């Protein structure tokens, strides 16, 4: 239809040229754009030039500010032409250029004219363009037209206005919210897509009003929804309403019938949306699942890959929580293993691995072996992970699964893939004692020919811990010592450490290890030599068969109970001097950085500059801050600083939050204050603390802020004395006291006279958790066993009715203030019981470990069994007291 552009282009005259844009140049096209200024416009030629400009932009070319402005002004001239095709290109071009506010004004009147034109196509497009480039002020001018357009009888115009409304809601919510009557009317439109767009907009307008959403869903589920897309939306909103209506343990779920009815809809996208919504229901029962699984099963044998993919992906998710419900599909799933689309095949395999039973494992493994060779690494990783969990589920089958893993370990593969395999083998060795010896040998063979330094060192480290405990440790020595000959310095160094561990644990091997270590003394690398020297000295005994000291074992095998990042910062700040570096000076608190950062933007009222202790490395910052104040110098070492506690509502005149600093026999409250009133200066700011509800505390000093100008945070401190080493608790009420002085906002001058004023703050509490440091352990079981049960205290508690198990678990963790280990703070959905591992350091540097088993008792009641081990009897009791009184 359009004349081939080739003919018009000066650059080439060869008709057979492949691309009409070959050799196109930005400068030349910009020159060509001058035709836009011709008094006699040639619409065809202008369209072609715009196409060329759009082509350049589409290829990633960018215009400078000047170029863009020039093109924009030239394009606006084209509104004179009445050629529809050209006008369409002008609309596109304006959207692509996204003009600045002062440029928008130029086209506003033209676009507004188009918005009221008789041609529907002009109206629809002008609305979309105008809403894309407009700002709030202009929007109020055109609001009237947009409201009309929403209920326009032409569906294209109505959709254009509604979709623009969805976009504008992000930037100008208060304006768009005024349109709800019109939008409501549009929801009833007979045009399918108008209904879809109106429903999407109406829901977004009302999304924070649960009752309104619920009403909307109720009325629509009874009525008729015309387009499949709108029906999908309705399904999503319905599941949202179901989710928010809370779990109904008894009786039928509201709206379930609607979802089930959608499974019989004629559009596949609706059927799938409904099936997926049912599988994702909270606490879905198998009776509810069945119809959804049945339609998904039908999809599995569809000829359309997208349908098969969607179904198998959803079933894969269901298999994680309800494996039994999916077993019916196993036959269809098995035929998908040979699917052309590898994504589908991988999902089918992993689903089968999740739902398979013990007898089918061998058959499945045979099928997978053929399949592994022709899929990409990322899919292989998924399969490896699925096999790992299968093996943990059926420990008796470890032999064939371990063989499979070792076979694929020998094949070609990238780092991530190999790492996944090695990790899996390590986990299997750890959890299935029978698999240990064969697993270790597989790993040994792997490092004989391993190109990844990281994996070699990891395996060597693991060998050092597990190898000596096997029946015949000597057979691993050869593999390890080979590394010293064949590998790079990093691997050699870690092989030396591994050798030393064998020497320390297996007394009979010690003389031979000694010989090997001596040879390492001549290595070309410093680190390798240093390690060899160190270990020869620590092992001692001149290479004879003697028992190794406990200290040496601790040194070799004990875990470093410090966060590495803290050690690193401490080492960096250490200056070489007479005094040796003291490892005990490294703070043990784990920095909960991600949490603090997440909180920061959301909660802090605007205008509150970051408090002096920014979330980044809080501990160090606080320590530095406190040590700079001479009054606090004799308080000793800071034990713990709490996270800031807000003492005012957001956006009040004065914003205050407090940090509790715990010392051995003192507690310091740091109040971070911000003055958010521009024409006030506060002087002599203090916090008057009433500690009548905290008997064991006695105020020792208070440090005021001399002057607190607008929007510059300042800190005032109040220090208390408390009995040494005792975890005293109490409640403190706070009153901010200060002198207000008026400031002239224009000149910045301050009046001399001030008025004394007070401001009530919220209460602050010192709780038991403030005396607990969050210190994690890497291997909880080891730590638990090595702690011994001398001071173990076990007791059971009823927590009463709770919202959910997860809520109860996190409440207990917060109450104790301990670090959850091994990810046990996460409670899987719908589980009825959970165990949680916690570790921490209590005031007085006493290590504490806790093992808590939660169980749901009756409909909502949660009960727990708490076992505490620590190095001190009193502390174990104290932990129980915290729980008993909390």
């Amino acid at each position, binding site marked *: 239809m359009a004349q081939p552009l080739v003919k018009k282009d000066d650059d080439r005259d060869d008709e057979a040229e492949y691309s009409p844009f070959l050799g196109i140049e930005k400068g030349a096209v910009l020159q060509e754009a001058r035709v836009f200024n011709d008094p006699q416009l040639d619409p065809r030629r202008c369209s072609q030039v715009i196409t060329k400009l*759009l082509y350049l932009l589409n290829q990633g070319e960018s215009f400078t500010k000047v170029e863009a402005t020039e093109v924009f002004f030239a394009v606006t001239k084209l509104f004179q032409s009445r050629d529809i095709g050209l006008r*369409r290109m002008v609309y596109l071009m304006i959207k692509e250029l996204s003009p600045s506010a002062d440029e928008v004004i130029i086209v506003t009147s033209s676009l507004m004219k188009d918005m009221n034109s008789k041609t529907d196509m002009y109206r629809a497009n002008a609305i979309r363009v105008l809403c894309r480039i407009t700002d709030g002020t202009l929007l109020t001018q055109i609001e009237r037209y947009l409201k009309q357009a929403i209920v326009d009888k032409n569906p294209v115009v109505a959709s254009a206005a509604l979709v623009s409304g*969805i976009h504008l809601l992000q930037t100008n919510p208060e304006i768009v919210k005024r349109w709800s009557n019109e939008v409501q009317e549009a929801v009833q439109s007979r045009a399918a897509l108008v209904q879809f767009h109106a429903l999407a907009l109406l829901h*977004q307008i009302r999304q924070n009003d649960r009752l309104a959403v619920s009403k909307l869903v109720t009325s629509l589920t009874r009525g008729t929804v015309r387009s499949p897309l709108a029906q999908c939306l309705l399904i999503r909103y319905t599941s949202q309403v179901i989710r928010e209506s809370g779990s109904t343990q008894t009786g039928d779920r509201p709206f379930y019938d609607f979802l089930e009815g959608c499974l019989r809809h004629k559009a596949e996208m609706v059927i799938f949306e409904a099936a997926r919504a049912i599988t994702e229901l909270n606490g879905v029962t198998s009776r509810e699942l069945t119809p959804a699984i049945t339609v998904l099963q039908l999809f599995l044998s569809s000829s*359309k890959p997208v*349908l098969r993919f969607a179904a198998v992906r959803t079933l894969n998710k269901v298999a994680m929580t309800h494996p039994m419900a999916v077993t019916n599909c196993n036959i269809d799933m098995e035929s998908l293993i040979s699917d*052309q689309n590898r*994504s589908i095949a991988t999902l089918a395999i992993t689903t089968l691995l999740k739902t398979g039973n013990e007898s089918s494992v061998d058959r499945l493994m045979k099928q997978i072996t053929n399949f592994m060779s022709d899929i990409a690494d990322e899919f292989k990783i998924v399969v490896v992970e699925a096999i790992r969990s299968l093996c943990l589920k059926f420990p008796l089958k470890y032999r064939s699964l371990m063989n499979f893993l070792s076979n694929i370990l020998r094949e070609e593969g990238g780092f991530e893939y190999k790492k996944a395999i090695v990790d899996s083998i390590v986990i299997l060795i750890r959890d299935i004692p029978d698999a240990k010896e064969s697993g270790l040998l597989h790993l040994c063979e792997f490092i004989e020919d391993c190109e990844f330094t990281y994996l070699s060192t990891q395996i060597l480290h693991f060998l050092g811990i597990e190898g000596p405990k096997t029946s015949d440790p000597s057979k691993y020595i050869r593999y390890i010592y080979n590394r010293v000959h064949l590998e790079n310095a990093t691997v050699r160094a870690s092989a030396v450490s591994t050798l030393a561990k064998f020497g320390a644990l297996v007394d009979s091997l010690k003389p031979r290890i000694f010989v090997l270590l001596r040879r390492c003394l001549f290595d070309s690398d410093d680190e390798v030599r240093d390690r060899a020297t160190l270990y020869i000295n620590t092992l001692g005994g001149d290479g004879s068969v003697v028992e190794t000291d406990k200290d040496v074992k601790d040194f070799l095998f004990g875990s470093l109970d410090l966060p590495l990042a803290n050690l690193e910062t401490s080492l960096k700040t250490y200056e070489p001097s007479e005094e040796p570096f003291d490892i005990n000076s490294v703070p043990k608190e784990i920095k909960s950085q991600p949490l603090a950062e997440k909180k920061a933007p959301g909660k802090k009222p605007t205008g509150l500059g970051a408090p002096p202790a920014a979330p980044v490395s809080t501990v160090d910052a606080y320590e530095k801050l406190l040590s700079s104040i001479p009054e606090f110098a004799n308080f000793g070492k800071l034990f713990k600083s709490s996270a800031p506690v807000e003492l005012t509502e957001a956006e009040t005149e004065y914003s205050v939050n407090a940090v509790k600093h715990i010392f051995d026999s003192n507690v310091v409250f740091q109040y971070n204050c911000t003055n958010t009133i521009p024409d006030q200066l506060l002087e002599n700011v203090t916090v008057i603390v009433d500690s009548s509800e905290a008997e064991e505390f006695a105020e020792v000093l208070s440090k005021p802020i001399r002057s607190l100008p607008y929007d510059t945070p300042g800190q005032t401190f109040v220090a208390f004395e408390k009995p040494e080493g005792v975890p005293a608790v109490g409640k403190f009420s706070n009153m901010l006291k200060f002198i207000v002085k008026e400031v002239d906002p224009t000149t910045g001058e301050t009046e001399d006279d001030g008025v004394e004023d007070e401001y009530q703050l919220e209460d602050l509490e010192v709780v038991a958790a403030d005396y607990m440091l969050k210190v994690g352990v890497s291997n909880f079981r080891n730590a638990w066993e090595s702690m011994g049960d001398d001071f173990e205290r076990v007791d059971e508690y009823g927590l009463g009715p709770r919202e959910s198990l997860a809520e109860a678990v996190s409440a207990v963790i917060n109450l104790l203030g301990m670090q959850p280990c091994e990810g046990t703070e996460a409670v899987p959905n719908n589980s009825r019981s959970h165990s949680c591992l916690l570790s921490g350091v209590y005031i007085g540097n006493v290590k504490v470990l806790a093992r808590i088993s939660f169980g749901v008792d009756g409909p909502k009641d949660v009960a727990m069994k708490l076992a505490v081990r620590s190095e001190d009897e009193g502390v174990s009791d104290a932990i129980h007291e915290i729980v008993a009184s909390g």
Partner: protein
Amino acid sequence: MESCPSIKNILLLDSEGKRVAVKYYSDDWPTNTAKETFEKAVFTKTQKTNARTEAEVAMFENCIIVYKFVQDLHFFVTGGEDENELILATVLQGFFDAVGLLLRGNADKKEALENLDLILLCLDEIVDGGIILETDANVIAGKVASNSLDAGASLSEQTISQALATAREHLTRSLLK
């Protein structure tokens, strides 16, 4: 889950993975380099598959990508990982068929580039800022092809060649219906 189905991008690439026309609606790929890297990765990943009779699907970088090929043109539609795959497939089919109609069944790279204006208008009519506008190929093609002159313009303003072109367009439109 996103409450409203949304499209992250629509790509039309040639048989070497080069751009014919692309449109991004999300900020996931802020720079042109990021976009090109994504396109290259998507292209390489899907290149060997046979997506000529039925649309195919892949997961990649937390996105769902549905795609379909014809001649030397590769069509892609990308959505978030929680998106309903069948909705994406409907959008893809709408785009694919509309381009087929607009290029009068001659869907290949040469024809597409020669009618790039139509392709760009077509993209504009399918999705607006990530929200699905229309998925029916006939409606989309109909909107794009209504390229005639404004009814108010008089014939005297047209040159001979323009008149010829108009006539040709009218013919095309009647063919499309």
